């Protein structure tokens, strides 16, 4: 008779406790099992293509000390949970926790070697920090804005009507009053930024040209909840998220599409944590349009003659799917690339760090609002990498990435134009 196998006593080693709520116990489990292997600091070595672009973590690259890395945050979590440190022991704890773009680079690299959810750990830590010491002054305007206006830009709700009106002029349905299969969820940043507004109009035009039955919520659209989620205001996230799911379910839509990577990742993945369940499919506009490209429904009229490179927004890529241990960290990687390749005259050249091992733009996790110097430093790193490809333009599809990369590019010797995927598409139509 075969000898009985000696297996680990703790069942969490036999199977990662994916379904259990993310509480202190789970946080400790992840932190405790950090082996200081440093994969959280570097691009997965199988994908390292040069010494120059081998780093994955903007925070660790910028601030150097190991405390500012995934490993360091695990050490911090363990010290806090085990009572060796308190949140107010050291003012630098704030920087360690919040000078992080929550890009998920470390999280993705870590998932190559173990089952863990570092980003969820950080979110839990941020939330505990806020519970103990209150929100960060750097995030005050953002929080006030959310509370007052349900958006992150301190803009009155009615301001959304400025673009909503443009869309209505195009004959786009108002889903507050009408029915459609598809909701175009615009998001606060595209919705309220004058600079980014044309993108929404371009998307609407493309959808319209292709006879997509879609509509918008206009000034009734509220924040998806991504910023509070990332900065640890979990109650606020739950408030916004729950309200949104209920509203979207009531609309009877089949599909929600959004051009914002932040909204996308939040609605598609993070909403799964909320008690109310979604009754619709969530797609990034790039995924939706990719289907049209595949069906040869997009008829380009112009050739653009441009060499471009694609920047993978974190929340559209590695953080754009729910985590299943052992399964691919899928995301919207191929769709935008296929769209780019479909545009006449476009040559796509890749940066070294792409897809699930892409370098962050620097704009996430509250850094864009709270820690501009760091956010823009991170952006400059990305722009330099883009420049090294020989591309004329960096293309992306996330308002945070676009804004932060543009801000980061100011003052750089070598300019790199940053454009939105759908604007480029429209230019060829």
């Amino acid at each position, binding site marked *: 008779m075969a000898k009985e196998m*000696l*297996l680990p006593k703790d069942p969490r080693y036999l*199977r990662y406790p994916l379904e259990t709520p993310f509480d202190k116990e789970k946080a400790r489990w992840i932190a405790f099992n950090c082996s200081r292997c440093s994969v959280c600091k570097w691009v997965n*070595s199988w994908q390292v293509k*040069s010494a120059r672009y081998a780093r994955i973590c903007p925070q660790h690259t910028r601030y150097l*000390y190991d405390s500012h890395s995934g490993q360091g945050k695990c050490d911090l979590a363990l010290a806090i949970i085990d009572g060796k440190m308190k949140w107010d022991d*050291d003012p630098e704890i704030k920087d360690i926790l919040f000078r992080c773009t929550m890009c998920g680079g470390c999280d993705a690299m870590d998932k190559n070697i173990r089952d863990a959810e570092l980003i969820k750990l950080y979110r839990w830590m941020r939330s505990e920090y806020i519970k103990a010491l209150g929100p960060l002054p750097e995030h005050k305007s953002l929080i006030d804005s959310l509370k007052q206006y349900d958006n992150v830009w301190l803009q009155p709700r009615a301001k959304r009507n400025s673009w909503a009106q443009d869309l209505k002029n195009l004959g786009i349905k108002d889903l507050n009053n009408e029915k459609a299969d598809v909701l175009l969820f615009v998001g606060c940043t595209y919705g309220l930024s004058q600079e980014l507004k044309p993108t929404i109009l371009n998307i609407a035009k493309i959808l319209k040209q292709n006879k997509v039955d879609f509509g918008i919520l206009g000034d009734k659209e509220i924040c998806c909840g991504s910023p509070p989620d990332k900065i640890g205001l979990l109650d606020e996230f739950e408030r916004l998220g729950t309200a949104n799911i209920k509203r979207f379910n009531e609309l009877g839509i089949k599909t929600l599409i959004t051009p914002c990577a932040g909204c996308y990742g939040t609605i598609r993945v993070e909403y799964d944590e909320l008690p109310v369940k979604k009754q619709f499919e969530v797609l990034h506009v790039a995924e939706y349009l990719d289907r049209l490209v595949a069906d040869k429904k997009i008829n380009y009229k112009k050739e653009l003659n441009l060499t471009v490179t694609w920047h993978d927004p974190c929340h559209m890529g590695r953080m754009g799917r729910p985590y299943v*241990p052992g399964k691919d960290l899928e995301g919207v990687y191929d769709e935008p690339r296929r769209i780019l390749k479909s545009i006449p005259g476009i040559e796509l050249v890749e940066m070294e760090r792409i897809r699930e091992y892409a370098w962050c733009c620097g704009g996430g996790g509250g850094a864009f609002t709270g820690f501009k110097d760091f956010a823009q430093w991170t952006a400059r790193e990305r722009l330099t990498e883009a420049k090294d490809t020989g591309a004329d333009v960096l293309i992306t599809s996330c308002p945070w990435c676009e804004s932060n990369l543009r801000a980061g590019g100011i003052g750089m010797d070598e300019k790199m134009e940053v454009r939105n995927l759908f604007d480029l598409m429209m230019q060829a139509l």
Partner: protein
Amino acid sequence: MAKKDIRNNDRHQQILQAFQAAVGPENVKDNPATVNAYYGDWLPPKLLGMSVPPEFVVLPNGTLETQAVIKICNRYKVPFIPVGSNQWSLTGSPNRQGTVIIDCKRMGKIHEIDEKNMYAVIEPLVTLAQLQAEAYKRGLYIGSPEASATASAIAGHCFQGMWGVGYRLGVAYRNILGIEWVLPNGEILRTGSFSLDAQNGFWGEGPGPDLRGMLRGYAGAMGGFGMVTKMAVKLHPYPGPKTWPVRGTIPNQISELPEDRFKWYIIKYDSLEGAINFMYEIGKAEIAGVVQKWPTVYYIWWWANSNEQYWTEWQKRTFQDNVKNAVGVCLWGFTSPKQLEYEKRVLEDIIKETGGKPIKQEVFDLWVPRTANNWIRDTHGSRMMRPSGTFLALRLQTDTLKYAVDHVRQGYEWVEKFSPPILDCDGPDWIGGYDFGHFGFGETDFPVEKRAEDIGDLMNKLLAMTKEDVQNGLENGIGPFLGGPYHQMAAPVFNYEHLLKGIKKAIDPNFVSNPPHNIDPNA
């Protein structure tokens, strides 16, 4: 809190100011949130409460700043630990209060890659993966470290470094060329051709007696002999592509090496002796780039993409029933595709003569593309932590292949004796062939649950076993990884106590370089 805070102490402030003057205020930290990130490790010290946070973390840039930092440590007689990526070591965590961590985060330059003469000059932060990427671009190769490619390449060369391609290209100790090195006493030592010209590190030996001897040893000097700030390392000819041919998405990545230049075989034998005989024959025939008899656990450690997958496959015995006593051979066509064809014919002759059988095709297909090829680039050793939070080793020794067999056989007995807390592992017996079979390396690794009680229990057992071995005049190889305490015990037995203590005393008169490693001269 304030009363206990060592930072309020005058001496602390004095040292802090000295460091600040040496490296700039932003490059030295003493706050709890920073130092808290510098005393954990995958191995037991932190888990068992044997390590404490350092008092300072200092980030010098370059040799001169490192020298200044080390001189300050000497002035104030404070211990320091030089760290690379600071993973995979028992001895990189402070074991006493008041320690200074010298972190190399500002030393990440590749000073030079001399493509023609096949070497690179690097600083300590440069990882094996970074160096490898630059080497590939030039048709060169650094070898696959047995740890992870996120490790510092300098530290990887100083440490054990029994990398697989060492079979053909030389064990890590042979890959070190010129070194620029701040000794524990703060003097800058340049070895090999650096001793003549600090810009030119192409040659490692001398002049005269070779002081590189101080740096290594079976498991390195454990930071006990100062800090290397610049090293020239060999690069080797490589017949593969200019970028690593990987595809897929984490964690399911597959690499495909050109079939006309690389070919894996995994050949199974009825006994360990059969497997070793096969390895000898390959070495004698002067073929192959990698020859490894991995233990069953390695196959699944490196292969499994989740804990569930690991333990499910383990319980199905997918690997235990197929790869026991199997030898992994990778043929490399350095010269041409015809070399590969030639080596295939020779290998197949040997397989036939020695009665080897290829493992089941489905297991080969399951394993090789996902694991074996990627192993050439990075073993991702940290995956060894997956199934139970950590792993430990019980014996390892390099001598001949034959000795490796005897060695792991003894290892089996100990594993049996210590299970539990050692978890199921199917007789862990890693045997590597090196230098075309001149050397054999045997190691006994196994998973053990990362629980203080289990690890503590096992650590005590392992220490008792090591002690017993040493008393019997047997160097079981795991000992050197413990650094000082081991050398204290083993040095009188193997007759190097006077020498090692003498050297330590001579170059580390204040006993500040990671005490008690690599030996305490006064004990």
